[in-house]
């Protein structure tokens, strides 16, 4: 079955080709374009699953050692930069999830972007081109053998996130949509914000890669992780730390940007300005997963740094993850936008993944990444379905009343309510996603979240003191409660109670191209957790746990199922879910929010996202703007422009002098003088022209005789 591995390079290639074909040839034909995109990702899914099958059948050898293909790409001096492909257990596990979730999202997009409807999105084909490129980026990242391909794919995703978050910044206002200018501007700002914020991380990552290359002379991941290489990196000192720690922290910086970890998480909630399938794509299968994947892939570096005293790069991963998990979950309590709640939920869940990795457990983090991808894609697509339904309801209601003036935000949960009867499939799917996210047995999220918490708990008990794992566990458990709370609130607001707006009253179920992916994903949200269920012997651990064995620093053993941990988190989850649901299911419009009653000023703090955006505005953006203005003034007002003006003035004076010289000396003397000379000569000589042929001939004859005489004489 090993021949199946040779298909690996094709996995990212198909969506890439789809992108090229749509952009170059078929962009005029909407249905054809989306069919190409869906077909290509379906092919990738088939190939990826074939590779997964080969890995499964290949046994421990393949799962640990991996298959690889070296492609010498760029000769640089004495070395050649490689751009190869590799598959091991870890990659194969990712290959199960990424193309499949992408496929579901692509199919869903066909309905969401309203193919064939009168109000179909004007840039429909382009949308499918972009998401194909996005998928190609993520797949390329996953199958990368070398840091070069990894970084290229990483940047492709950065570009695509920019293009897609700002996708509606070109949407034209018309009678049907009456899109306001404000939305267009918000989309542009969100796209820029995402791009620039992740760029900070990208620069750090690139520095890390450059350092790695300069110290080890290779960009191939498996070679970097060889024990002797890691040992060398441990002994080199850089900035008072071992080089390996510095590099790990730089790489982590990249992951912080891409995976929206505190303090670079601010771009992600704003990214909700993009179309909902994009949110699902970014938050589930691709972009944010890339950061976690990177840290997991580079885990030997982190752990090697950890082994050297006073250099706990790994601790920072855990700390940042814990902070992010709590931060995201608490902010999620106070948001009104259905997608923003999910965005903060994503931030928080990514924090969990980082926590798992920060505790040194590859499998715990990645297991949560995989389950989260399924249920978060499900939740986002569900939210998109809700928005779609409510928008349609608004449309219907507006047509019935013949008024279209009112400003209406279809994302506002407070304008929804009672949708469980109107959108039954969406409701059931959404409920499955919620239960998975909150972590109720036997949904997927339970198993994965529990594994992270059990890992922390285990490490705490092994030590006994109030050490870092304890705080991580505490943050995770509290975060689980808050997660349940905001999801209970969301369920209550969206699906229970009475419709609080005419739009919600007229909402209807979405087309089958949207509901079928929802149902499929719901099944995965229900069942996927069993791939690593402890009572089945933690199969995922055996499958991918060994990929870092060769580095001799990562030791993956499945933590035994801990009943205490599971019980505590389940009780808290159920309590939170019920509490949120009870408080909000009969929420009336205009009523003070129950959470606000309980929390008071804290609620305002949460609603304003801890004022982090405002803080950045004051601390970073304003100084930058001031600096720009300062530079502008130096340039435009004070130094450079005046100097430029001076040079210009000097040039004018010089040119005046030259002009006088020119008009007097050149023009009058030379040019006109020459003409006058010839004119006068002509006047004098004209009398020699008698017009008589014989005179002329006489002159000729005499001249010849004279010349002849001269010739003979001399």
């Amino acid at each position: 079955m090993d021949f199946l591995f040779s298909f690996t390079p094709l996995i990212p290639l198909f969506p890439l080709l789809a992108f090229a074909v749509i952009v170059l040839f078929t962009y005029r034909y909407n249905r054809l374009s989306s069919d190409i995109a869906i077909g290509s990702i379906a092919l990738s899914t088939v190939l990826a699953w074939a590779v997964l099958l080969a890995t499964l059948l290949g046994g421990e050898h393949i799962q640990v050692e991996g298959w690889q293909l070296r492609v010498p790409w760029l000769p640089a001096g004495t070395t050649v930069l490689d751009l190869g492909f590799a598959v091991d257990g870890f990659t194969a596990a990712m290959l199960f999830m990424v193309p499949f979730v992408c496929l579901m999202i692509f199919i869903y997009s066909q309905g969401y972007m309203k193919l064939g409807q009168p109000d179909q999105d004007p840039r429909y084909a382009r949308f499918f081109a972009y998401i194909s490129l996005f998928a190609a980026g993520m797949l390329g990242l996953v199958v990368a053998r070398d840091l070069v391909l990894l970084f290229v794919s990483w940047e492709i995703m950065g570009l695509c996130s920019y293009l897609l978050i700002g996708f509606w910044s070109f949407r034209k206002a018309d009678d049907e949509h009456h899109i306001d200018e404000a939305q267009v501007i918000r989309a542009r700002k969100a796209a820029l914000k995402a791009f620039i914020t992740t760029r900070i991380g990208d620069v750090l990552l690139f520095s890390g890669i450059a350092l790695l290359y300069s110290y080890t002379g290779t960009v191939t991941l498996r070679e970097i992780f060889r024990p002797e290489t890691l040992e060398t990196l441990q002994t080199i000192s850089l900035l008072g730390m071992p080089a390996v720690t510095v590099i790990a922290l730089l790489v982590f910086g990249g992951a912080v940007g891409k995976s929206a970890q505190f303090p670079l998480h601010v771009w992600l909630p704003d990214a909700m300005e993009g179309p909902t399938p994009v949110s699902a794509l970014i938050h589930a299968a691709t972009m944010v997963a890339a950061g976690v994947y990177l840290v997991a892939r580079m885990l030997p570096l982190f752990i090697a740094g950890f082994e050297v005293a006073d250099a706990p790069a790994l601790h920072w991963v855990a700390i940042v993850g814990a902070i992010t998990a709590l931060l995201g979950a608490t902010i999620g309590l106070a948001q009104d936008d259905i997608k923003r709640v999910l965005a903060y939920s994503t931030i928080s869940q990514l924090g969990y993944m980082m926590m798992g990795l920060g505790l040194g457990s590859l499998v715990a983090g990645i297991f949560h990444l995989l389950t989260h991808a399924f249920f978060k894609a499900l939740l986002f697509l569900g939210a998109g379905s809700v928005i779609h339904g409510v928008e349609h309801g608004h449309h219907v209601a507006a047509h019935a009343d013949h008024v279209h003036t009112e400003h209406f935000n279809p994302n506002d949960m407070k304008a929804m309510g009672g949708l469980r009867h109107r959108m039954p499939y969406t409701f059931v799917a959404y409920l499955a996603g919620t239960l998975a996210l909150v972590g109720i047995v036997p949904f997927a999220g339970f198993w994965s979240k529990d594994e992270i918490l059990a890992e922390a708990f285990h490490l705490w008990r092994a030590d006994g003191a109030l050490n870092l794992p304890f705080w991580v566990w505490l943050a995770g458990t509290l975060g689980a409660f808050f997660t349940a709370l905001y999801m209970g609130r969301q369920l209550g607001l969206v699906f229970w109670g009475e419709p609080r707006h005419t739009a919600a009253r007229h909402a209807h179920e979405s087309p089958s191209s949207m509901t079928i992916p929802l149902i499929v994903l719901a099944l995965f949200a229900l069942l996927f957790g069993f791939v690593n269920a402890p009572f089945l012997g933690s199969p995922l651990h055996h499958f991918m746990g060994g990929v870092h064995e060769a580095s001799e620093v990562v030791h993956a053993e499945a933590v035994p199922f801990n009943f205490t941990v599971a019980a505590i988190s389940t009780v808290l989850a159920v309590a939170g879910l019920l509490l949120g649901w009870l408080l909000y299911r009969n929420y009336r419009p205009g009523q003070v929010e129950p959470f606000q009653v309980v929390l008071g000023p804290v609620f305002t703090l949460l609603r304003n996202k801890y004022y982090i955006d405002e803080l950045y505005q004051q601390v970073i953006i304003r100084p930058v703007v001031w600096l720009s203005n300062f530079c502008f003034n130096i340039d435009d007002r004070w130094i450079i422009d005046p100097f430029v003006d001076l040079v210009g003035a000097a040039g004018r004076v010089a040119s005046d002098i030259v002009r006088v010289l020119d008009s007097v000396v050149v023009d009058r003397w030379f040019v006109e003088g020459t003409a006058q000379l010839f004119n006068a000569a002509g006047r004098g000589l004209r009398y020699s022209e008698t017009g008589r042929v014989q005179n002329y001939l006489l002159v000729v004859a005499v001249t010849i005789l004279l010349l002849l005489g001269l010739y003979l004489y001399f």
Partner: protein
Amino acid sequence: MAIPLSWWLTVAAALFAIGLYGVLSRRNAIGVLLGIELMLNAANINLVAFWRFITPQALTGQVFAIFVIGIAAAEAAAGLAIIISAYRRRRTVVVDELDTMRW
């Protein structure tokens, strides 16, 4: 006995001088044309004489002479046509009166 080259050249020079005199002094345009013919034939005598005495093995001198005769015929035809045309316009063939090219 052969006539030496210098004699031929002298005859040719005399013929040329007569032709030139005719060209410069005749008032009738046809006379001027006749003078030109004399000068051309003087040149022909030179060509043939040089050929005969210097490069008798090559035919160039003769060929040149034939060319000159051909050109002289064409020139005479063109010249006479011009004179007829001028006569038709000006009712005269006196070259002194054909002075439209004057300043």
